[in-house]
Every structure is written in C-alpha cells, then in structure tokens.
C-alpha cells in the first residue's frame, strides 16, 4: 500500500464542493491514502457535519481505521467549535480616559471655531451692511456720470457728414456735384 501523501490520487476525483452538493465518498474508488487527503481538504465540512449520510459513514469507517486522521479530525473539530479566546481583548485601563481626552479636545476645537465665528460675525455684520449701502451709492453715482458722457448728437455720423459737406472746396468736382443735385431739387434744371 502507498503511504498517504498530499499529492496522492483520489482527492482530485472528489466533488470539490461538498457543502452544497454532498460528497460521495466511495471506498472502492478511493484508497486509504486518498481518504486521508480527502479528509484534510474537507475538515470544515466534517467538523460541521455538512456531509451527506453516505459520505459521513464512509469517513467514519476511515476514521475508525486511521487513528492519525481521527486525531486530526477530533483536534480540528475542537478548535473549530471552540475558537481560542483572544489573548488580550481586555482594553487597557487608559482606554476610557484616552477616549474622554479625545472627545474633550474635539469639543474644545469645535466650540473654539464656533466662538471665533460668532465674534467675527458680530463685528462684521454691521460693517458688511454699511459696505453694501456705500457700494450702492457709489454705483449709482458712477452710473449717473456715465449718462453725462454720452456723445452729443453733433458727434453722430449724419452730422459729421453734413460738416464735411460744408467744408467742400468751391470749384471742385464734389462742389459741382452737390450744386447740381441742389439745382435738380429746386427744379432749376
């Protein structure tokens, strides 16, 4: 017979999902070495008794004949059902004082922030209102100034054109053309 080894054949042919589907463990297909490998790879299912009746009885048969596997299963089941209490789950004596220190520091910071903001608001509120009022007056004043600087009608294009007509040199082509147009309008021609 072969000694048990983790590379032994047999385990690969097993259903890898025994928790959901149940495990069919057949001794005729699986040697004792494969059974050992199988048991090592399904310790939780065995500990929680999740295996089907047939598989469970097959495993039980193997455990009866293999004291090493029986010892491993027993030990694992004990460890699984009674996980070790953590060595140091009791907080240190300074746990609560540290917590209170932290809370007080946080509250001091928050109240400090609140205090500064309150004082700032009390001082700045009338100043802000006055600034808004003065700003309104200044803006109105500036807008009034801007109305006065609107260019007079003389500066418009039509008046500029008339001015340029008045300055036409006499005897020039432009002067002849303007005189002719005027004559037409007056019906002289």
């Amino acid at each position, binding site marked *: 017979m072969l*000694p*048990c080894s983790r590379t032994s054949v047999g385990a690969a042919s097993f259903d890898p999902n025994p928790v959901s589907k149940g495990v069919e463990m057949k001794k005729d297909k699986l040697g004792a*070495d494969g059974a050992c490998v199988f048991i090592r790879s399904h310790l939780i299912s065995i500990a929680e008794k999740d295996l089907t009746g047939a598989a469970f009885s097959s495993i039980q048969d193997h455990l009866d004949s293999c004291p090493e596997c029986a010892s491993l299963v027993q030990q*694992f089941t004990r*460890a*699984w059902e009674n996980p070790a209490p953590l060595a140091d789950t009791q*907080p240190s004596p300074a*746990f609560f004082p540290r917590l209170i220190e932290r809370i007080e520091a946080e509250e001091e910071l928050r109240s400090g922030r609140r205090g500064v903001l309150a004082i700032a608001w009390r001082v700045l509120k009338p100043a802000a209102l006055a600034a808004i009022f003065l700003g309104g007056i200044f803006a109105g004043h500036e807008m009034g100034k801007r109305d006065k600087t609107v260019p007079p009608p003389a500066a418009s294009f039509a008046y500029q054109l008339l001015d340029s007509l008045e300055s036409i040199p006499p005897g020039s082509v432009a002067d002849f053309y303007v005189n002719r147009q005027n004559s037409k309008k007056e019906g002289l021609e």
Partner: protein
Amino acid sequence: MDDGELLRRIAAKDLGAFKILVDRFQSRVLGLCSRLLSHPQNAEDVAQDVFFQVYKSSGTFRHDCRISTWIYRIAVNRCRNFNRDNRKFGRWGELPRGLENEDGSGPGVVAPDGDDPASAWSLNETRELIRKAVASLPEKQKAMLILNKFEGHSYQEIAEIMGVSVASVESCLHRAKLNLQEKLAPMFPDVCRGRKF
C-alpha cells in the same frame, strides 16, 4: 438602564452614560476589531475610533435597529477601512507568515518539521492556523465568518450589521467556508506519512 436610554443621555453629552456604554461594549468591540484587523495590535486604536464615532453620532441614531448592531456596524466598517487603507499603502497589510495573499502571491504554507508531524500540531496551533486562514480571506467573507463563527451572531444580525440581505449572508458564508477549506487543506501535515495500510 437600557441601551436606548443610554444613547439618549449620551446625545445630551452625559459622559457618565457614555462610560456605562463603553464598559458594556468595549470587550466585544475590541475582540471583534482584534479578529478583523490584519494586525491586532491596532485593535485598541480602532476601538477608540468606534466609540468616538458612537459618541459623535449618538444624536443622529434613528433607533431602527439594536444599539449593539449599530455599534458592530461601525466597528466592522472601521476595521475594513483600516485594513484597506493600510494595504493600499503597504505598511501593515502583509499577511502572517505561511499564508498566501488573496491574489495567490506571497509565501506558501509552512508546516512545522519534525519526526512525528501529527504530534507537532497541538490544539492551540490548530486554532492559530484557523485564525490565520480566516485572516487571509477576502474582507467581506472574513467579516461575516468572524461575526458568525467567532462572535456567534445569527444570519439576520449579520445581515443588519453588514447592510445586506440574509440570502447574501448565507451565500457569502458558504463561499467563505469553501475558501477556508482550500486554504486549510495544505496547512496540515501528512498525518499518515509512512503509515502502512
């Protein structure tokens, strides 16, 4: 004084009530943090964060679940954030010796050497192996398995703590156990080595 009354007093800044609440829950919160954190030495700091959060948020608690569930939820979230942040920066995220990372990288499983391997595994060593294997699970599976197996919470309570459905808890726990079995199998020595059948 019940937890609800305690929380109402805490919301009114009653430090005496807060001390009662801390005394009532600190061992359980610290134990949960120790199990959930990759490095249990940070458990007390994270537990401090948990109670600090409880104090700050006591006024906004809606009383739609039990106080203990709410505190556990804060603890689980804090631990997951802590693990995630420290893994991201690679400071304390490494796994205990002998375990693989979730992506399969890292050192393999190391079994103790000896003439008689079976005798080398004491009950405490088996517990330690289980603890390390659980620590190497993905965060969500680890949290649910610890809450169920080590802290004794029901599926319904875990669903409330984790903010998921009961079916999701069942499915996640099932996957966690399969993962754990895969991780545990190579961790045990060939107990039958040399045995003649």
